[in-house]
C-alpha cells in the first residue's frame, strides 16, 4: 500500500520522471517514514491548527484580491465581497470561522502539551517556538479584526490599542506605533493590513517550519514515560510500541481535518460572518466587546487597576512561554505533577469565569 519512493528502481510515470531528476526519495522517506509511539495521544490538535492555517492562507489570499485597505473603500469592499462576489460570503465566513477555530485548537494544543508534559526535556525549544506561534496567531486575530472597518472593528481596535497603551513605560510609544498616529485612522488600517497579510504570515511560516522541524527531529512524546536524560541511567520501562507516521497517523489526521472542514462549512453556512454599520469615529456604540478570546482580559481590566490588568496577562503569557526553563522536573504523568495541574486548572477556571462575565452586557 505504501509507496516507497526511495527504492533503487524508480517508479514509472510522472513520479519516476521527477524522481530521476530530483532524487527526492531519500528526503521524503526521512520526512514521512518516522515511527511514533503507539500510545502518543495528540488528539490531532496541532495538525488541525496547521490545517486551519492552510485554510486561512487560501481564503485570505482570495479575500485580498477584492479587499481595499483604505477607510474610504475597506467597508464597501467587504460589503461587496459578501454580497456581490460569487461565493464571497463563503470565503469570508470560512476565513472568519477558521480564525476562531485556529485560536481554539491552538489553545487546546497548548493545553494538551502541558497536561502531557511534552514541553519538558528535550522539547523545550519546540515549546518556546510554539509560544511564538501562539503570539503570532493572537496578532493575526487582533490585526484582522480591524480590516472590515465596521463599527465593531473600529471601536474594538480603539479599545484594544488603548489597552496596549496601558503597558507601563512603553505604553504611549506602543500605542503610537500600533495606531500610526494619535487615533485609529487610515494609517492604522494600512499597517494592520500590511502586518496581517505580509509580516505575520512570513513570521508564522518561518516559526512553523522550525516548529515542525523540531517535532520531526524529536518525534512525538510518550505521555507515560519521560525521555531518558543524558548522563543518567535510563529508567526501566517496557519496550515502546511504535506505529508508522505515514500512512497510519496521517490518515487519522486527514479524517480529523475533514471533520473540522465539515464544522467550518456548517458554521459558515448557518452563521455567516456579519457586518455592522460602517466605522464612525464620532459615534461610540453602546456596547463594545472584543472577540471571545480577549474577553477575559477585557473583564479583568474592569475589576483591577489598568496597569495590573495589562501587565498580568502579558506576564502570564511570558511565564507560560518560558515554562520549560523553570519546570525541570522529570515527571510527565499529571497525577505526579499536582502543583502544575492545580495551577492550570485554577488558570482555566479564572479564564472561564472572566470570559463569562466579560460576555455579559
Amino acid at each position: 500500500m505504501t509507496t516507497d519512493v526511495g527504492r533503487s528502481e524508480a517508479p514509472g510515470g510522472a513520479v519516476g520522471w521527477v524522481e530521476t531528476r530530483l532524487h527526492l526519495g531519500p528526503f521524503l522517506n526521512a520526512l514521512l517514514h518516522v515511527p511514533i509511539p503507539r500510545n502518543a495521544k495528540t488528539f490531532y490538535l496541532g495538525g488541525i491548527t496547521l490545517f486551519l492555517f492552510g485554510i486561512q492562507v487560501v481564503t485570505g489570499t482570495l479575500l485580498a484580491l477584492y479587499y481595499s485597505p483604505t477607510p474610504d473603500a475597506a467597508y464597501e469592499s467587504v460589503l461587496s465581497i459578501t454580497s456581490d462576489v460569487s461565493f464571497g460570503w463563503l470565503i469570508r465566513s470560512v476565513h472568519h470561522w477558521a480564525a476562531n477555530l485556529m485560536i481554539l485548537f491552538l489553545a487546546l494544543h497548548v493545553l494538551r502539551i502541558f497536561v502531557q508534559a511534552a514541553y519538558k526535556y528535550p522539547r523545550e525549544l519546540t515549546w518556546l517556538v510554539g509560544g511564538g506561534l501562539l503570539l503570532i496567531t493572537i496578532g493575526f486575530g487582533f490585526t484582522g479584526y480591524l480590516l472590515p472597518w465596521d463599527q465593531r472593528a473600529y471601536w474594538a481596535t480603539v479599545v484594544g490599542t488603548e489597552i496596549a497603551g496601558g503597558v507601563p513605560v512603553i505604553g504611549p510609544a506602543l500605542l503610537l506605533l500600533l495606531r500610526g498616529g494619535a487615533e485609529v485612522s487610515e494609517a492604522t488600517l494600512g499597517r494592520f493590513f500590511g502586518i496581517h497579510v505580509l509580516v505575520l504570515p512570513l513570521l508564522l511560516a518561518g516559526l512553523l517550519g522550525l516548529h515542525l522541524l523540531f517535532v520531526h527531529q524529536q518525534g512525538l512524546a510518550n505521555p507515560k514515560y519521560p525521555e531518558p536524560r543524558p548522563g543518567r541511567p535510563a529508567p526501566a520501562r517496557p519496550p515502546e510500541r511504535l506505529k508508522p507516521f505515514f500512512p497510519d497517523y496521517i490518515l487519522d489526521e486527514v479524517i480529523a481535518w475533514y471533520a473540522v472542514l465539515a464544522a467550518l462549512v456548517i458554521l459558515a453556512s448557518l452563521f455567516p460572518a456579519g457586518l455592522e454599520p460602517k466605522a464612525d469615529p464620532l459615534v461610540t456604540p453602546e456596547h463594545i466587546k472584543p472577540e471571545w478570546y480577549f474577553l477575559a482580559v477585557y473583564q479583568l481590566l474592569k475589576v483591577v487597576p489598568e496597569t495590573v490588568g495589562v501587565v498580568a496577562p502579558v506576564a502570564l503569557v511570558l511565564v507560560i512561554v518560558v515554562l520549560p526553563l523553570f519546570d525541570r522536573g522529570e515527571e510527565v504523568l499529571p497525577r505526579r505533577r499536582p502543583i502544575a495541574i492545580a495551577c492550570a486548572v485554577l488558570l482555566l477556571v479564572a479564564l472561564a469565569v472572566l470570559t463569562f462575565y466579560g460576555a455579559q452586557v
Partner: protein
Amino acid sequence: MRTLRPFLLPALVAIGSLLVVSMAAAGTPADDSAGPSRVFEVSQATPTPEVPLETAPPLPTPIAHRGDATSTGCVDCHAKVDARQAGIADEWQASIHAREGVGCADCHGGDPTSDEITVGMAQAGGFQGVPDREDTVGLCGGCHASAERMRPYQVATDQYSKYFSSVHGQRLLVAKDDRVAICTDCHCSHGVKPASDPTAAVYPLNVPGLCASCHADASKMQPYGIPTDQFDLYELSIHGVQLLEEQDLRAPTCASCHGSHAAKPPRSDEVVDVCGSCHTATQALYEESAHSRLEGVGPKCWTCHGTHDVSEPNESLFLHEGGVPDYLCATCHSPTDQSLRLEMDRFEDPADRRCDTCHHTRSLIYSQVEAIAGAVGGARDAYDTALLRIDDAAALGMIVADADVAAQEAMTELIKARAAVHTTKLTTISALTDATVVKAGEAEALANAKLADSDFRRQAMVVVIALIALNVLVLISLRRRLHAQG
C-alpha cells in the same frame, strides 16, 4: 372764574382718569381684589387668558458704589459669619457674575472696599441690604436691559420688557403679587449661571423641573386655580421622554412653547405658530388644509395631539377602535347657535382625539377620513411587513444593507405621507402612501432574495457535508484495510 369754567369739566375728567390709571398701575387693594382675580383666574375651560398688558415700569438706575468685584470687603467678613453666608459667598464666587465683575455692591449697595461694617454696610454710604422681590426685577434689568452693558456678551436685552409682558410680570406689576416667579427664582440670587451651563437650573434639560418646582406644587397653585399635572403629563409625552430621558436638547422644554421671560400659555390662535416654530413643514401642510381654512374655530394642533401630553402620533389617531362613543353635539358645537366650537378642555382625554370624534359616521367627510386612514395604515403595514422580512433575513446572518436602504426610503415616504395627513387632502396623501408601498415592496423583495439565498446555502451545506462524510467513510475503510494488513 368764568373764563376757567369751560375747562373745568374736561380737567376734572382728565384728573379722574389719571387717578384711575395710576391706582391701577400702583395696584391698589381695590384693584387686587377685583381686577386680578377677574383677569388672572385661570380655569381649565379658559386655558388661554387674555391678559391686559401694563407696560414695564421705567428701569431704575444701577446702584452706584465704590470699588468693583475685586474689592473683597464683603466676602472677607460674610464668609466667616456662618455656614449659610459662607455658602452664599461660594455660590457667588462660582457664578458668572463673579467672573464678569459683578460684585455684591452692584445689587446690595454699600462700600465693598471697606472691611468695617460701619462703613461697608452704612445706609449713608448707599447700602441697600436685600432687595425686595418687586425691586429685584428692576435691579437685574438695570444691567440686563442695557444694550451698552450687555454688548460684550452678545446676549439679548429684552428680558425686562418680556418679563413684564408675562403672566408672572403682569401679576407682579398690576396685582403686586410677589409670589410669582421673579428673576432670582429661576436664575438664583448669588449662584447665577449662564443657560449654557448644564448645572444651571435654566439649562434646557433642567427647565421642566424648574417650572414644576412651582407649577406642580398644589399649595402654590391653589390661589390661581390652575392645574398642577403639567409636568406629570409632559414627563410621559414624546417631548418629555426625548428631553429628559434621551437628553435630546432639540426637544421642547416648557419655555419653548410658553416663553421663558415672557412666560404665558399660547392663545388658541397662536398654537399653530408655536408648534410650527419646530414643526415647520407640518405647519405648512396644515395651512393647506380644510381645518386651517376654518381659522379660529378649526381644529388646532392640540385637538389631535394634546398639549403637555403629546404622544408619538400613529394611525390610531384616525378612528376609534371598536366604534365611536356617543359624543354630545356640544363636544364640537355651541349648544346655543350650533357653530363649531372646539375647545381644549373637550379633548383633554387622549381617547377623544380622533377624527371621528367630530366627523361622525353619518357625515360626508367620514368616508374621506376612512380612505385616508386606510391608505396610511396600508402603507404602514407594507413597511412593517418589509421590516419583518428583513429581520428574518438578518436573523439568518444575511447582510441586508441594500434592503435596509430600501426600507429607509419607504419610511421616508411614510413620514411624508403621515405629515401630509395635515393637509386633509386624500389625493396628496395617497400619492405618498403609494410611493411607500412601492419602496416597501422593493425592500421586501430584496429581503426575500436574501432568505432564498440563505435556503440555498443550507441546501448546499447538506450536499457538501454528505460529500465530506463520503470521503471520511472511504478513509476509514482504507484505515481498516491498513490495520488488517498489519
